[in-house]
């Protein structure tokens, strides 16, 4: 293992190169741009033999991926925020067509008001689309989850697309030491793309037919089962990944100092790093606080979450998104996972549109949760209201 200091987006671009997509199709949008610029250079320099399609929109970007994937090529795209919203119809379609597309999401807020800064509203908006969703805490996870995502998605028992989400700017534009695996290792782990079926004049099939009420329900049911089945695939291939690369991803959720915790924080993405530092400081002060990081949001690991949190007194969920008129998406689902346990689950909507979240904020949230104050926007500037 050799650690190199590199920007998150470049690390992702280099990793995508190792996964050898034959067709890359993407449209530039902040903060995803460095990934697609990086890949464009990689292709221009002959370091990856791929068709790089400079499309007219995110809508076309993912549509091109549908065509190329259906024709039997491994494909890649990347987007964020408004781009993902524009893609929306194609996002649902790609999943329904059961095409194993991997797409990076450099998480960003959604307008209006326009914001180029980080939160996770964009990918959360697509939680019902039937894509797998992975969230990286740091750039090493972002690298590893891309390789793992291809492995899981292309399994013939799964055949689903996946988002690999990593926080815009906070990770995408930050330089961190990362281990980029060797090309031989990734080839060995992934193997060439073996499509379940493809558009081929030698074996004609009709793809993407419409379903009447006699058939539609079963299509959706089978799709739902496949998303659930992906949990086992994550564990299986996550373990195999660990054996080959030394970093184990068998778990869909990961605890940090959680075993004896009274208060559990639940979070996704880069905020987990800040939270771990805050926990270390709180522990030094004698507070028993732990973290449960959700790495795989779809399928949602309800059972794993309930088990991991069964012993705590209080749960504080950090949501970088909000379902307006309800609560944060993560909290809603954590509450469902903990249904019947009597453990209070408090939701904190925070960090939206790039508002910084520091260790002090995490500590304050723990204090609020201990006092039973939650289900709120945290960090509001009262003078603006």
């Amino acid at each position, binding site marked *: 293992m050799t650690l190199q200091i590199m920007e998150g987006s470049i690390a992702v671009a280099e990793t995508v190169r190792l996964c050898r997509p*034959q067709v890359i*199709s993407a449209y530039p949008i902040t903060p995803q741009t460095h990934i697609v610029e990086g890949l464009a250079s990689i292709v221009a320099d002959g370091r990856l033999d791929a068709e790089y399609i400079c499309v*007219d*929109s995110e*809508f*076309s970007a993912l549509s*091109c991926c549908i*065509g190329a994937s259906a024709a039997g090529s491994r494909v890649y795209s990347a987007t964020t925020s408004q781009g993902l919203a524009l893609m929306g119809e194609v996002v649902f379609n790609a999943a329904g067509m059961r095409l194993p597309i991997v797409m990076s999401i450099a998480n960003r807020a959604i307008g209006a008001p326009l914001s180029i800064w980080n939160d996770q509203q964009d990918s959360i908006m697509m939680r019902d689309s039937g894509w797998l969703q992975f969230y990286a805490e740091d750039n090493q996870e972002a690298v590893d989850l891309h390789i793992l995502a291809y492995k899981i998605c292309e399994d013939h028992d799964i055949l689903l697309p996946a988002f690999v989400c990593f926080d815009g700017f906070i990770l995408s534009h930050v330089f961190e030491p990362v281990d980029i695996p060797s090309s031989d290792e990734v080839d060995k782990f992934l193997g060439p793309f073996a499509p379940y079926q493809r558009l*081929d004049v030698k074996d004609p099939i009709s793809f993407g037919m419409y379903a009447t009420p006699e*058939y539609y329900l079963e299509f959706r049911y089978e799709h739902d089962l496949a998303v659930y089945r992906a949990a086992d695939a994550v564990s299986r291939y996550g373990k195999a990944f660990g054996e080959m690369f030394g970093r184990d991803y068998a778990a869909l959720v990961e605890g940090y100092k959680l075993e004896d915790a009274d208060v559990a924080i639940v979070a996704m993405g880069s905020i987990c790093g800040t939270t771990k530092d805050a926990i270390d400081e709180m522990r030094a002060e004698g507070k028993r606080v732990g973290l449960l990081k959700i790495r795989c949001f779809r399928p949602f690991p309800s059972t794993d979450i309930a088990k991991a949190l069964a012993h705590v007194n209080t749960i504080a969920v950090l949501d970088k998104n909000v379902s307006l008129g309800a609560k944060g998406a993560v909290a809603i689902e954590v509450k469902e996972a903990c249904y019947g346990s009597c453990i209070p689950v408090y939701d904190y909507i925070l960090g939206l549109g790039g508002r910084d979240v520091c260790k002090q904020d995490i500590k304050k949230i723990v204090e609020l949760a201990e006092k039973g104050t939650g289900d709120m926007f945290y960090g509001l500037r009262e003078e603006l209201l």
Partner: protein
Amino acid sequence: MVDRTIENFDCGHRACGGCGASSAVRMILKGTGGNTIVVSPTGCLEVFSTPYPETAWKIPWIHSLFENASAVASGIEAALKKQGRLGEEKVLVIGGDGATVDIGMLCLSGAFERGHDFTYICYDNEAYMNTGIQRSGATPYDADTTTSPSGTCSYGNNRPKKDLPQILAAHGSPYVATTSMAYPMDLMKKVEKAMNTPGSCYIQVHTPCCTGWGFDGAKTMVIGRMAVECGLWPCYDIVDGKLASAKKIKRVPVDEYLKAQKRFRHLFKPTRNEAELAKIQAIADANAAKYGIDIE
């Protein structure tokens, strides 16, 4: 020349009796040969040919969405190129006018600007027929549709057809053509030409719709010919941006073509609307002058 005895679009599909589009597709596939992958956007053709688990397509076919067929075709072309299959296998889009001139315009323009090697054929039945005859950007002037109805304050659709062939020629397309399903040899010849021209090629096929236009389904071919003979549907091709050929006709006034369809009957009843008929005649005259279709 390709083998025109081959039928790659099977019978038993669910199109209306007398459907111009379904006949056009049958002939189009005689022009393409069998080594073709077809992309269809949402629309009449997609719906009447592929109700799961049945299909009328004997060659590979894919439908994704209403507005993205050109982008899906771009992706297929890129994949075939990378897999070394392009050339042996060809890519063809067949979509309706709504999917082409309206909602699919972004993806279509992008694909033609990038110059992907595929042919796009628009079957133009001049409205959103699948959803119940609503106006599209290809609906002709004064046509009555369910969203451009004639009435006491309306003569129907108040805009002329969007000129998509010229728009795509302006993208630098090596081959752009118009034709009609009522002229099968012209149609098949142009399809074959487009399929064998590298780059993004475009053909707009006039396909009368008995249900949407209001005529007897036994008269589809006749109506198609009348459109060409009056100059409202000029058949031409543009090679590398220059007009290469146009079908010459002994042109007749537009009246008989319009009278034969219920979508224009408000122009004749209760009385002839001379002012509006003159405007439609002017459109035909302009077509004739622009493409030089009149036999002197």
